[in-house]
């Protein structure tokens, strides 16, 4: 049992990454990690040895996030509707690929609804499989896939709209 704290410490870099899939600021993510770790230590007997500690901690983080922090934020639209996205153009794709406007990627991803953003980052940044993401978020795998596809199309489409053409010079 004495090792439990060290096991969690070893996971902290990963937990911080996972927390950022939920929050839009680093400070909020670290607050969330800390709250989850404290809760985990209080309820360590409810973790089943042999199962994934990071997944267990993520679920604690997520529940805490839903229960407390998110309550203080304005509601984000939950977009699970079937709105059809326009096909990004070939020219836009080249611009996106040529210019890694990373700050812009972050801004666009952060503007997505919570549900899309979380699954987007869990899969694309934290390298979870669809099934792992579904388990962590407690949604069906089909929901993970529809949110993920929509988020990625939205990301690329938004990047195109915002990235000036090469000849266009400075961004305002």
């Amino acid at each position, binding site marked *: 049992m*004495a090792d439990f704290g*060290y096991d969690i*410490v070893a996971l902290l*870099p990963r937990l911080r*990454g996972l927390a950022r899939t939920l929050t839009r600021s680093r400070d909020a993510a670290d607050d969330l990690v800390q709250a989850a770790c404290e809760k985990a230590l209080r309820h360590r007997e409810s973790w089943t040895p042999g199962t994934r500690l990071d997944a267990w901690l993520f679920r604690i983080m997520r529940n805490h996030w839903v229960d407390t922090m998110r309550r203080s934020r304005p509601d984000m639209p939950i977009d699970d509707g079937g709105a059809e996205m326009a096909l990004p153009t070939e020219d836009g794709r080249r611009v996106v690929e040529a210019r890694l406007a990373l700050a812009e990627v972050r801004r666009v991803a952060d503007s997505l609804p919570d549900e899309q953003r979380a699954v987007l980052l869990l899969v*694309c*940044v934290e390298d979870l499989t669809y099934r792992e993401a579904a388990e962590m978020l407690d949604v069906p795998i089909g929901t993970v896939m529809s949110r993920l596809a*929509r988020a*990625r*199309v939205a990301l690329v489409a938004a990047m195109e709209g915002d990235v000036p053409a090469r000849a266009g010079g400075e961004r305002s």
Partner: protein
Amino acid sequence: MTGKVTDEMLMAFVDGETDETTRAAIERALAADAALAARAKLFHGSRTLLREAFGDARREEVPPALIEAVLGRRDNVVPLRSRIRARFALPLAASLLLVVGGAGYLAGRTGAGNDDPLGRAAIAEALSATRSGEERSISLAGESARFETLATYRVEGGICRSFDIGGARASLTGIGCDRGTGWTVELTVERSGGNAYAPASDAALQSVDAYLDALGVSDPLTADEEAGIQGRE
């Protein structure tokens, strides 16, 4: 396969989440349809972009306050800050000190003045100057101590070394890394008091092992591999 390849199918294909049959069918569809192939590339590209935009959390140093929050819950560990100051005054035999270092500790400081009670600057310097298995003498808190680099690991963005320090009053083991911006001490664990040749405690070794696991390292580099890296620097 008949029918349209949906975005979700295309995305699952790009992410390696389709079964063999679907994979083969989508490959055929992609070969026949340039627009579909372009869209597949978008899905692939979005992952790359996101990884570059957000993928830094695991390379960052964990704030000491977080570590403190986790380990501070243990009854036998007092808050980190007071432990740093009192380090050399404590009865150490059964104690365990875990500190994750900030680069700020190292900036512009050498030697072991009061600002740097753990001698991070001296450790960082020793890390840069030794290879696995090599020893040197360093000055910690005004006293001479034996420093040894134990092993070297390749990590994302650089290399890390595990080290061991035996001094007159205390022994440390830990991890330091160079991720392209110079050596910093990322983890130190006090493993015993007063005997440079005492075996590392289980808890100390487990902390180091757990940290290496968290970094995702595999086996240490061989001497040849290490020399190769050093030679390119």
